[in-house]
């Protein structure tokens, strides 16, 4: 009876080890997980960028409208480029345009960098999938497990970098308008 119990325990431990040590399966699960969270971050980035740009635009629009009104300009001048206007309305719109471009550039520049980081994550996931495809086709020599684990770790790290960049940018954008 004791031997039977020991045999059962051995089998259960073997099952656990087998389940946990399938690197291809682990890699597929990680690729799936990172793809999903990377997509979510991408959507979040787009939504946050759009909201931040709209906030800046509305605030600047209100300021431009108020300044034009105070200077006695035409309401239609708010939508015209400063180059098409005459002083003092030209100066008001030109200053408004400059402020607006500076503020939007402060949002768009870092957003592009975060977007590029998200793209790098997808590229690294494709590399992992290529290796998995080779493994499935029996084209990988011995030791592929280590290489695969490194590639997966790299993809996860890249995603971490993208999230860090996004979080830092989002904190900055929160105070922009």
């Amino acid at each position, binding site marked *: 009876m004791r031997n039977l119990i020991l*045999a*059962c325990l051995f*089998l*259960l431990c073997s*099952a*656990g080890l*087998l*389940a*946990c040590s399938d690197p291809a*399966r682990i890699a*597929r699960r990680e*690729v*799936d997980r990172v*793809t999903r969270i*990377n*997509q979510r971050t*991408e959507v979040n980035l*787009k939504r946050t*960028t*759009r909201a931040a*740009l*709209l906030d*800046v*635009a*509305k605030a*600047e*629009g*209100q*300021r*431009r*409208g*108020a300044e*034009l*009104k105070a*200077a*006695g*300009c*035409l*309401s239609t001048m*708010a*939508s015209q480029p400063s180059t098409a*206007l*005459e*002083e*003092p*309305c030209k100066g008001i719109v030109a200053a408004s345009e400059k402020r*607006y471009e500076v503020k*939007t550039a402060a949002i*768009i520049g870092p*957003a*592009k960098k975060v*977007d590029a980081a998200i*793209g790098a994550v*997808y*590229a690294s*996931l*494709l590399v992992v*999938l290529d290796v998995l*495809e080779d493994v*499935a086709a029996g084209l990988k020599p011995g030791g592929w497990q280590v290489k695969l684990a490194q590639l997966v770790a790299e993809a996860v790290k890249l995603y971490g970098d993208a999230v860090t960049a996004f979080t830092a940018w989002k904190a900055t954008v929160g105070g922009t308008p």
Partner: protein
Amino acid sequence: MSATEMVSWVLAIVKTVFDTVTEAIKGPEPPSLAELQAKVKAAIDARSTDWIKEAKADADKALVEAAAVEFSAAPKDEIKKP
């Protein structure tokens, strides 16, 4: 019940426990390689920097609208030409 039958029963029980534990440890089956490749490639294909241009264009419109709204809030809409 003979000894052989008992052993086969015990083995069947052990196998069931083994399979159950294995599945529990493994968790849900991850998507297949083909599914993952399609998913990642679709995500990459859908990527474009146009969304930034579109968001900026929408913001430009919002600026003009906000300015017009602010202006129209004045008692006199158009005060004078410069």
